[in-house]
């Protein structure tokens, strides 16, 4: 079993995710293997993160600017974004 390498990922937040967490983006160093693992890591940081990530059904995730899911692996990922369902048009 390969040990999980530490990696640096740019994490972005939009709309009410940005407002709840309080910042638009940050560099995160993690050994999480999937988006879901990273979310659990972030949620334990403090109440703002815990609240922002409390209802995953209302959160969408983009991996390197492509819509994706919480099961997506983090290998070679440079940019992650979390946001509510989109409301353009």
């Amino acid at each position: 079993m390969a040990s999980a390498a530490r990696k640096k990922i740019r994490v972005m937040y939009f709309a009410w995710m940005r407002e709840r967490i309080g910042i638009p983006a940050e560099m995160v160093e993690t050994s999480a293997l999937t988006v879901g693992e990273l979310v659990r890591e972030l949620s334990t940081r403090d109440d703002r993160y815990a609240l922002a990530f409390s209802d995953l059904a209302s959160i969408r995730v983009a991996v390197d600017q492509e819509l994706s899911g919480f099961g997506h692996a983090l290998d070679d990922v440079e940019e992650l974004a979390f946001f509510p369902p989109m409301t353009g048009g």
Partner: protein
Amino acid sequence: MTVRLQEEDFDVSVEAEALLGGRDDVGALVTFVGIVRNRDDGSLLSLELEHYPGMTEKALGSIEQEAISRWSLNASLIVHRYGKMIPGERIMMVATAAGHRRDAFAAAEFLMDYLKSRAPFWKKEHTTTGSDWVDALPEDERALGRWADDA
């Protein structure tokens, strides 16, 4: 096949003219313009449009490519604004040019349906009683279902 993000307003005639560019093989031009709609009680002060620079262009570009692969189009355009707008202002437009009206209509509706649910835009409403993010509508997500058969 153009995608443009901008803060400033646009003019539908100017965009249509640029899209057609003097060509004479287009028989049908459909445009859709989304406009900031006030609430029934007139309480909407302004709308704020946030987007995800970089991903927005990619998402709109791939939605447009999908439309081009499904229908026979001569040209298409998506213009979407971001920033603050007041009721009555134009938010965005799509335009589709085709030989025949069926293709132009279907492609324009397809672009709108996908743009609504798959392009990273978020609207915040500022009203006389406070500010809040606009919720996505279940029917907008469901609207995508009707294009699945053609995939």
